[in-house]
């Protein structure tokens, strides 16, 4: 925050390496100082890594129906099935290894969550930039639409979009498209936050003189938006994005609970929970418990990172 008081210093010193500068930056400093954030980052990192590496580290491939044996079903954690196969976290009603389904499921959940968030970001940022920069009627219309989106719960919007997709896409292709529909549905129900934030920030940035300077030179408005304004409104977007990611993952889970998620043969964490909760009373707790814990850990870690990022990027808190 403090501005260099001595005008002589910045000129002379040789800039240190990029990596060092990043490590030494205020953001990373606040990171190093917060043990909760370090734990959250570690958890998130491990979960994401495990999800990415699932095909190599998972003991089984639960997405390959041919490799499953029904008779392995309902094996308790840390024991062998009737068929003699070992399951660390037990197996589910289809004889799938719970550990492997979690690894593969996180992959699906993360993919859906990240893609949906990116999609929402893309829409929200472009609309927000346009609204904030152009202003006037365009702004009013975009913001009214955003209001409508915000006032309708994401779940409802996603349900409806899912409905339409079912109507439009021929039945034989629906399964392959399901994951993309899910991404679009969640994305379309979450863009307004981005649009609002970006619009607000854009309206502030637009007033700044560096934009005027570029306009004087005759730089094309689109270039101004993308090269000048966009980088300067990214900080709050990043914060919303992390929290939006956590929300998207949970939203995917809820949609799966309501029965409009990914196919059960390629379950996400949400689908796993939906399946698992059927066995809540029957004693096979592990089918619900482990995916649920994973989901909570993932969402919690991402949320905590978002929290930290919000504070770290807020200059007034430094």
């Amino acid at each position, binding site marked *: 925050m403090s501005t260099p008081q001595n005008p002589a210093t910045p000129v002379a010193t040789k800039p240190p390496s990029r990596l060092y500068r990043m490590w030494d930056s205020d953001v990373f400093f606040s990171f190093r100082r917060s043990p909760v954030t370090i734990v959250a980052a570690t958890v998130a990192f491990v979960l994401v890594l495990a999800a990415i590496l699932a095909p190599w580290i998972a003991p089984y491939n639960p997405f390959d129906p041919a490799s499953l044996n029904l008779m392995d079903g309902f094996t308790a954690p840390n024991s062998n099935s009737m068929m003699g196969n070992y399951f660390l976290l037990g197996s589910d009603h289809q004889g799938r290894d719970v550990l492997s389904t979690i690894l593969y499921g996180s992959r699906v959940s993360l993919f859906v969550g990240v893609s949906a968030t990116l999609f929402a970001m893309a829409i929200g940022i472009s609309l927000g930039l346009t609204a904030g920069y152009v202003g006037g009627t365009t702004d009013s219309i975009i913001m009214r639409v955003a209001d409508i989106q915000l006032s309708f719960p994401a779940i*409802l919007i996603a349900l409806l979009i899912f*409905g339409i997709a079912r109507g439009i896409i021929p039945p034989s292709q629906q399964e392959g498209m399901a994951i993309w529909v899910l991404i679009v549905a969640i994305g379309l129900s979450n863009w307004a936050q981005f649009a609002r934030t970006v619009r607000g920030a854009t309206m502030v940035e637009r007033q700044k003189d560096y934009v005027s300077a570029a306009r004087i030179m005759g730089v094309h408005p689109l270039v101004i938006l993308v090269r000048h304004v966009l980088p300067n409104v990214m900080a709050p977007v990043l914060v919303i994005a992390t929290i939006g990611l956590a929300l998207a993952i949970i939203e995917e889970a809820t949609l799966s609970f309501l029965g409009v998620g990914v196919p059960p043969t390629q379950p996400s964490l949400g689908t796993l929970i939906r399946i698992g*909760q059927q066995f809540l009373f029957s004693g096979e707790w592990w089918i619900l418990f482990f995916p649920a814990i994973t989901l909570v850990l993932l969402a919690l870690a991402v949320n905590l990172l978002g929290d930290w990022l919000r504070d770290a990027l807020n200059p007034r808190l430094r």
Partner: protein
Amino acid sequence: MLAFILRRLAQSIVVMLVVALISFMLFRYVGDPVASLLGQDSRLEDFEALRERLGLNDPFYVQFFRFITDAVQGEFGISYRLQQPVSELIMSRLPATIELAFTSALIALVVGVTLGVFTALRPKSLSTAIIMTLSLVGVSLPTFLIGIGLIYIFAVELQWLPSFGRGQVVDLGWWRTGLLTESGLRSLILPAITLSLFQLTLIMRLVRAEMLEVLRQDYIRFARARGLSKRAINFGHALKNTMVPVITITGLQLGSVIAFAIVTETVFQWPGVGSLFINSVQVVDVPVMAAYLMFIAFVFVVINLIVDILYYAVDPRLRVHASGSGK
């Protein structure tokens, strides 16, 4: 002020029309109501006949126009599934949803604001850290899981509270309330907690963030320099200023409580409009679904209006804006 409200209303009508169009369009694709209306023994010609009778073969705009003209008269037709007038069904289910939503909103607001203020005033204390982390756990769990978990613990294992339904209701003629009987109140606890948890966390975090921001403002510093008491600064000045942005977002959020009730109502078999909606989606009961969406839009519009009026009451700066000088 009147002009301001009138303008809002005009905007609202546009919003309602758009929602009507969207909902109507969407529902055409949710599924084929005919399939669920007719049983296993029906034949193809029956399907065709029914489609014709329901007007499903008419062009899209004809159907939409019919829908709008009826909707304006509060006429949403007869539920395909329950064969009763939709408006009647919605009205009979509304008290349950409103009582649930209202209670949850109240919990969320009171607890959310209290905790938000508390954590903002003690930014470094251990209890703040604990509350903040716990609240995150709250939003990291899907609602349905929380509901099922609460049922398992409090209804099945401990048997303290009912697991489903509204309990005993008292008929007040036009309103059936569960708030006047013990069993009604007991039934309300679990669903209300489930439903409020998400909003509570949101409001709490929002209040905290805003309050921290406000506490750094110059007028707070100046209030300190004037020697005002801590109480007057924290609650008279900081809290009131915090509420301005909080009101808008909270208002919008509370609107979505009613809609969020879908999941909670399903889990707790709460006889409100949300579970009516989900049951209707499953059998593609278009009249009910359309009416429900319109209802949600209406709630949103009303809440927005109330928020605007509140805003107007709280923030004197807006009064100039509202009375003419634009932005």
